[in-house]
Structure formats: C-alpha cells, structure tokens
C-alpha cells in the first residue's frame, strides 16, 4: 500500500485524543486540538491514545499506522474527497 506522504507529514507524531464514529464518517480529535474527518464506506475502529506513525493508501483503502505497531484501516467513501484535516484554528491542513 502506497504511503500518503503529504498526509503523513501533516499528522505523524500526533496522538489521538478522542474518536467519534457516525454512520459514514469517523471524526478524530488529536492532542494538539487538530481534527481529522474521514468519510467511510464501511465500519472502522480507531483507538484513542495511539500516536500516528504514517498513512498509507491504495485506491479506496486507507490505513493509519501507529507508533505502537497497531493500525486502523478504512474504506474511503470517495477516494480523493474523503479526508479532511484542520488545525486547532480550523484552518485547512489537508484535504483529499
């Protein structure tokens, strides 16, 4: 699975503080108060307190690898238009 270099640079090192899962989307709040929303096509689970190591993508498959060796895999609802990261001031950091 190909590394999403652009998104990895943005969120690597951030620790997940809270996760909200709704039908069709997952919202992640990081320890620096930035947030990430992922529109998903299926169920997904992410554990709080995990520190992001890298992000990988292959078409609709979206995988976050964590420093502790665990990972979370999602199926994106619409590749290229499913992931949004905003900083604590709500400024765009990444869209894709």
């Amino acid at each position, binding site marked *: 699975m*190909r590394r999403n*270099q652009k998104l990895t640079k943005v969120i690597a090192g951030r620790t997940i503080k809270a996760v909200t899962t709704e039908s069709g989307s997952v919202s992640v709040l990081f320890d620096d108060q930035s947030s990430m929303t992922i529109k998903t096509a299926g169920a997904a689970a992410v554990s709080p307190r995990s520190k992001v190591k890298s992000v990988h993508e292959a078409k609709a498959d979206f995988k976050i690898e964590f420093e502790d060796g665990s990972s979370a895999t999602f199926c994106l609802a619409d590749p*290229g*238009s499913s992931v949004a990261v905003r900083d604590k001031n709500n400024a765009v950091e990444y869209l*894709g």
Partner: protein
Amino acid sequence: MLARRFHPALENSAMYILQALAFLFLTQAVLGEQPTPILPDPKLTPGDTFDVTAQDVCVPGYAKKVRAVPAWLKRQAYAEYGITRYKTGDYEVDHLIPLSLGGSNSIRNLWPQSTKTSPWNSYVKDALERKLHKLVCAGQLDLKTAQSDIASNWIEAYQKYVAKSPPAPRVREANPARTTSTASEIWVNTRSGKYWKPGSRFYGKTKQGEFMSELEALDGGYSPAGGTGQ
C-alpha cells in the same frame, strides 16, 4: 522479355485483398481516433467539492495542501472517457471545479481536458479559474455560484466572467520536458517517500514505486533521495 503475368482471376483476387486491407487499415485509423472533449460529460464529471469556505480557499498555498491526484485516478479519468492512447501533453487531467475554488480530487471532478483544441482548451479554462478565484477572494462573487457556474458549462462561464467572445486561437506547445520520453520522469519509492532521478542507483529499482514527473512528485509531498535524487 515479357513480364511474368498471373492468371487474371488471381490478379483480381490480389487486388481485392489489397483493397480490403487498405479499408481495414483506414477503418482502424478512424476508429482509433480519440475523442477530444471540450466540455466534460455531466454524467461522468458532474463536479465535486470539499467542504470549504471562501475563507479557506483564499489562504495562499491552499491548493498545494489539497492537490493529490494519484496516477491510478488519472488513468481512471482517461478510461472513463474512452481515451486509451495519447501523447504526453495532449491532455491534462483537469479538476472541473478547480482546487482553487474548493473542487475535490474525486473522480467525479476529474476529466481529461485537451490542450490542443482551439479556441477552447485547458489554458483558456485556467484563465477563467484565475478570474473566478480573484472575484471570490475579493468578495465580489459567492463561492457556491462560482462552483456551480464553472461546473455547469465552463465555456459559458468564461463568456460571462472573462470575455464575451472566445479568445484568439492559441494552443500552447506542450512543455518540452514532458514531451520527451519517460526517461525524463523520476522514480518515486512510494514506501519511503523519496524519489530518484534517471541514472541514479535506485531509479526504477525499489520494490514499491512508480514513475511520474518531478512536479507531480513534489506536489505529492515526495522529496529527492539524499537531497538531490541522484
């Protein structure tokens, strides 16, 4: 000395075969011609946007943060339009609603736009995109209106916002760097995020990777291996 002659029936048969082959060749040539859409097919490319505001898109550097069209998605855009053969520089995979106006990288917002058609081509649309971005960021045009107008018919939008008459025919020559062979492309190790230039040690040799232009690699957040890619 008499020239050797075949039986007339045989000569006729040979002529028919030659004619049939010529017809077949011409048919293939015509059918092989690729379509050159000036407007996108609204069923394939209705346009798609990120959930952003004018405030978001008017921040300098915004488009760079959101530009991410992987090679497979570009190939899908060409395939959906039936374009199977093309020269580098003939088309660009265009965001119907440009990133600068909140357009997304979804396949629903991507289409292969010709750089060769005249007068309406990708360079003319670029001028419209710049104009609309300027109007939106000056507060003179609502972002949703700009998105809707360019998605419904970008030529009409050009005539509405830029000029009534089409621009003078102008087809920019393809970037010479892109018309050369794929040897001009760099090799990205998609696992490490580093790229290698032609002639370097790991060019085309890492387990995971793909060829692309250096600009695409930089856009994708990749960086040269060892600082130079050599």
